[in-house]
């Protein structure tokens, strides 16, 4: 009897010890966490992110999973509040026992989670907040996909300067008074210096400001005919609405959030064919192929929620799964991080430029393409390919 007990205990121990050291990994599944904005005004971003993870996981699982293990995505809401992001990630680590993290909410949110991420050596792919603060200083387990707002604005202003307003350009900037606005101003400053642009005015506003009548009146008085619009969603739309009321004829460079359908619906009525620069493809065969795939794995409601954040989160999980697959059966966080760090030229199917993390900052997808809106039919056309600035 005693021998039987010892044998059974030994067998049980052998069957569990292989993965006991790695949370979130069993013989049949791998848990990947996703902390996101599922409630509040920005919830359309979180929903898009969740759909991206879901489609990627479903596709990977349909193809046999990661070395036979299915990916299970566990989503937690943070309502875009950093304190809740911290709590949500604590829950994902302690209660759900996730192996890795794919969705990471906004910049302040991912920074609030950073001590937990580094402490747990959690393989993390940041796709929705490619802010410099996230990858400088570099954290060994954190890999960032995305261009900087600075490069995005520099790229647009370069395009405008080279192609749309070759002479007589009077430039103005309006931006939020936070880290995000600071990054935009950095790109604006670079363009002003490199191209010798006439910098007429720079204005800051507080996040959440809704009325821009005074700001745009000042812009008009300064003769601004190229606007770097650092507003997002309703803010950007209100800025353009005020400009239209004042009859301003101008070229506009915008934030990449302005290429999402909800933003376009708000901004298009002002009638400006504004530019955006994005590290994610907005149209073309890659997007068509993705949408076709989405029909297989997502419901009609989920497909309706798809936007650029869906594509980039999809790419994030795919590159994470690729690294995990290279680790074989003995999947560990350390191995996944090592493989992520060695990633070079991972094909994102054209949704972004190929992903390579084998650089000092573990940063990829920094190339941006410039697009222009057709305000009448609310579609975008690509003006450039993905270019590194």
């Amino acid at each position, binding site marked *: 009897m005693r021998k039987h007990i010892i044998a059974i205990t030994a067998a049980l121990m052998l069957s569990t010890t292989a993965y006991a050291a790695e949370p979130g990994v069993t013989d049949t599944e791998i848990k990947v966490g996703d902390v996101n904005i599922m*409630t509040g005004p920005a*919830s359309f971003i979180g*929903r898009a992110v969740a759909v991206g993870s879901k489609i990627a996981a479903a596709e990977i699982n349909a193809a046999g999973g990661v070395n036979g293990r299915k990916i299970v995505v566990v989503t937690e809401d943070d309502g875009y509040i*950093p*304190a809740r992001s911290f709590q949500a990630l604590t829950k994902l680590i302690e*209660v759900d026992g996730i192996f890795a993290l794919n969705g990471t909410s906004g910049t302040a949110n991912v920074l*609030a989670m950073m001590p937990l991420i580094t402490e747990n050596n959690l393989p993390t792919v940041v796709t929705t907040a490619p802010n410099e603060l996230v990858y400088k200083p570099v954290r060994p387990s954190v890999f960032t996909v995305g261009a900087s707002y600075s490069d995005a604005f520099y790229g647009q202003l370069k395009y405008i300067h080279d192609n749309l307003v070759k002479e007589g350009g009077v430039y103005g900037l309006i931006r939020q008074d936070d880290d995000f606005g600071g990054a935009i101003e950095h790109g604006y400053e670079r363009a002003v210096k490199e191209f010798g642009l006439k910098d007429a005015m720079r204005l800051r506003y507080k996040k959440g400001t809704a009325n821009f009548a005074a700001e745009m009146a000042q812009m008009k008085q300064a003769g601004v005919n190229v606007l770097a619009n650092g507003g997002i969603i309703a803010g950007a739309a209100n800025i353009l609405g005020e400009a239209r009321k004042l009859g301003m004829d101008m070229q506009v460079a915008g934030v990449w959030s302005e290429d999402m359908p909800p933003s376009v619906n708000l901004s298009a009525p002002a009638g400006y064919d504004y530019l955006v620069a994005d590290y994610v493809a907005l149209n073309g065969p890659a997007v068509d192929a993705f949408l076709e795939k989405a029909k297989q794995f997502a419901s009609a409601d989920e497909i309706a929620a798809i936007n650029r954040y869906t594509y980039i989160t999809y790419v994030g999980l795919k590159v994470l799964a690729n690294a995990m697959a290279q680790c074989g059966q003995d999947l560990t966080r350390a191995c996944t991080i090592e493989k992520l760090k060695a990633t070079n030229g991972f094909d994102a199917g054209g949704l972004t430029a190929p992903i390579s993390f084998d650089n000092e900052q573990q940063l990829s997808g920094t190339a941006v393409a410039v697009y222009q809106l057709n305000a009448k039919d609310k579609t975008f056309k690509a003006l450039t390919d993905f270019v590194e600035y």
Partner: protein
Amino acid sequence: MRTGHYKESLGQLVALTDSPTVKAWSIGLVVVLLAAPFAIGNYGLTLMVSALIAVIGAVGLNMLTGTTGLISLGQAGFLAVGAYTNAILLADFGWPVWLSLPAAGIAAAIVSIIVGIPSLRLKGLYLAITTLAFAFIINHIILYAEWLTHGPNGVFVTGATLFDIDLQKGKPLYYLTLGITILTILAALNISRTRIGRAWMAIRDHDIAARVMGIDLVRYKLLAFMCSSFIVGIAGALISLQIRFVNIDVFALILSIEALAIIILGGLGSIAGAVLGAVFLSFLPEAIRLFFTAFVDPNSTFYTSYVFEIRGVVYGVVIVVFLRFVPDGLIGLWRNVRKYWSNWPLAY
């Protein structure tokens, strides 16, 4: 059997309670709280720490709004002052945590004088708007004083160790927060029974009558602001220790609204009410989450599309229902239950 208010010694007069039942329950609760870290996981501890910080903040606000009758929407600002003071002193100046924590409270108390002085002639909504403006001003100062606060980049909080024990996570953080919570509650209970506490209540009930009775309104209102802000500043410092990162987004205006909701839901003017309200609202989202986890398939489309929004709505509805049907707050509900069973079977 207890015979009412007959006291035979000074000790009996100054005792916080003369009820053996209350004493037994209090000791029992403290024992349970002390043992809790050994029974719950790290996530449970995180929730407990958040709840305890909410208790400290609510007791602080209750001192100002519940006891003195001065409505404040500037709590997010005081929290930010406390959190930033603690974070900067620890991370940038290398102060020990036993100095940075009280410094956070003192900084918030000093700042509260600046808000308190112009607020002395204001009451009700006018005061609420003034304190709200203060929260915005603090926000701006933090953003623009980059040389000190790191502006929008925020501060990573490191170096909070005492005797080589890291006070920023797990059991040490829990016991630190629990200790401060107990001290805060005891301090608030005692202050409310002193001349200062009675003066605050007199100001709340009728400030002109209080003045006629010889209460110096300037002094006591400022004192209320300072005491309340000191406590809220400490709560802010604890938030910075727990999250280990502070920037202005952590101290959104919604925190001020939630703080008011906590003390109204708990029962305005009651320290026990503030505690109950803080605990209730801290654990409500978790209770709702557990409910949905138990009854909704997490792999369903409904879950990924709507469940989080519904959870948010349920949270709001529960608060509205409580305010509508339990106007005296949770403490009022508790008193009614206690009264019913004390008089049972003759309850009416």
